[in-house]
């Protein structure tokens, strides 16, 4: 088997094994109320898809994930960059970072809802605040690792600020930004579900809340798995190709 064929076949095979474990567990449980087999989800899935509910709630969740992601990444990158560049600022802001990093997501969410109200702004803000410290910490490491030689080069040749950021600084930070984005998307969509569970009337989290109260394990799984599929598509269709593009000079 060639290298590329193998690199494609292995993830698919590994997922098939996971599906097999689930099927065996379902057969052993023999209670579709508790754990339906994979094929027993096809009916409910199709129903939700045809009614339009599935797409609507997936869309709402995806929209919130996107908003929180953009907000958390831009603020986190900026914060990490200035903290990595200025030791003084780092000393001042580092304790804040530690506090926010150790504040449980649930507490931030509840406080945002209590102070701002059960609104979209509160929901997205709560998710962003949860993620910003992580992004900042990763990017601070990146900013500390910036090459002093390239910095000197940019200064000698008096490169304008914009060009320096775009051609000298950001390419050096790209691996850190990609890492933060990766772990960011995974964390953000989980927190978005909690936010929806607690205080929104749409989205995958809201649907899971509703079917949890009805003890409908099947529908909980339908919504959860559908969203996992969406996030995998984002990872493979968006994040990985972008990463390959910015890394192409390494492979050359």
């Amino acid at each position, binding site marked *: 088997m060639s290298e590329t064929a193998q690199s494609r076949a292995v993830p698919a095979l590994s997922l098939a094994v996971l599906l097999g474990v689930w099927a065996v567990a379902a057969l052993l449980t023999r209670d579709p109320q508790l754990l339906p087999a994979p094929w027993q989800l096809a009916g409910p899935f199709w129903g939700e898809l045809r009614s339009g509910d599935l797409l609507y709630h997936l869309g709402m969740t995806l929209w919130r994930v996107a908003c929180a992601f953009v907000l958390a990444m831009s603020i986190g990158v900026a914060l990490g960059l200035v903290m990595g560049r200025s030791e003084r600022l780092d000393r001042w802001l580092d304790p804040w970072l530690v506090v926010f990093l150790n504040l449980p997501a649930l507490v931030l969410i509840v406080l945002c809802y209590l102070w701002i109200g059960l609104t979209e702004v509160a929901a997205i803000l709560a998710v962003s605040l949860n993620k910003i410290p992580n992004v900042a910490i990763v990017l601070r490491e990146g900013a500390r690792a910036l090459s002093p*030689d*390239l910095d*000197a*080069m940019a*200064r*000698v*040749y*008096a*490169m*304008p600020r914009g*060009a320096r950021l775009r*051609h*000298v600084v950001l*390419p050096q930070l790209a691996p850190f930004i990609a890492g933060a984005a990766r772990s960011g998307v995974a964390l953000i969509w989980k927190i978005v579900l909690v936010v929806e569970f607690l205080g929104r009337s749409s989205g995958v989290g809201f649907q899971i809340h509703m079917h949890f109260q009805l003890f409908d394990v099947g529908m909980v799984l339908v919504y959860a798995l559908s969203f996992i599929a969406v996030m995998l598509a984002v990872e493979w269709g968006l994040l990985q190709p972008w990463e390959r593009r*910015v890394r192409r*000079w*390494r492979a*050359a």
Partner: protein
Amino acid sequence: MGPVTTLGAARAALAGGMIEVGITDKRFGAVQVLGQVTFTVAPGEVMAILGPSGVGKSTLLRIVAGVDEDFTGHVRGPARRAMVFQDPTLLPWRSALDNLRIVHPGLGDAEAQEMLGKVGLGDRGAAFPGQLSLGQQRRLSLARAFAGQPELLIMDEPFVSLDSATGEEMLALTERLIAETRPATLLVTHARAEAERLASRIMHLAGQPAVLRDGVGP
């Protein structure tokens, strides 16, 4: 931009591309690295600074280049500066051609291509620096320095760790480009032969803290 002949003309010549360096003190923490270092370089003149490694040659160059501003004294000189570093210090994520164009936004495509041709990289414009040999990367770094038509050129051991054939090729190329552009050039090296070949004046940096000494030296 005539050459400077008398001391009295120094101030007027400053505007004409002369560089005047008057460092009195440079420290890293409690350690004084540089003492009195005073010199001028006229346009078209090449001054070489020799000295043992670790004496503070690179520190001096960083001050003259304007990268290190934490010192006592003054550096006056032209705004159009270029520096050839010990390492090529290229942008590894941009092509050879882009390495010239990004650093010199005023440079047209044809001029950038012509500059690559001058250093023998005419057909490697699309290559990333990682695809070039060390000798080619050094030549690209040289092309980047001269592409801006610098009035002040600073070279920090530009021929170190090259084999003798490549080193000779680089030397000849540098000689040609300096003759063409005629910047005020400051060359730091530990190889006496390089200094004698390129420079019209040789100084020694020695001592602790290091000071500049004239003439033939040890």
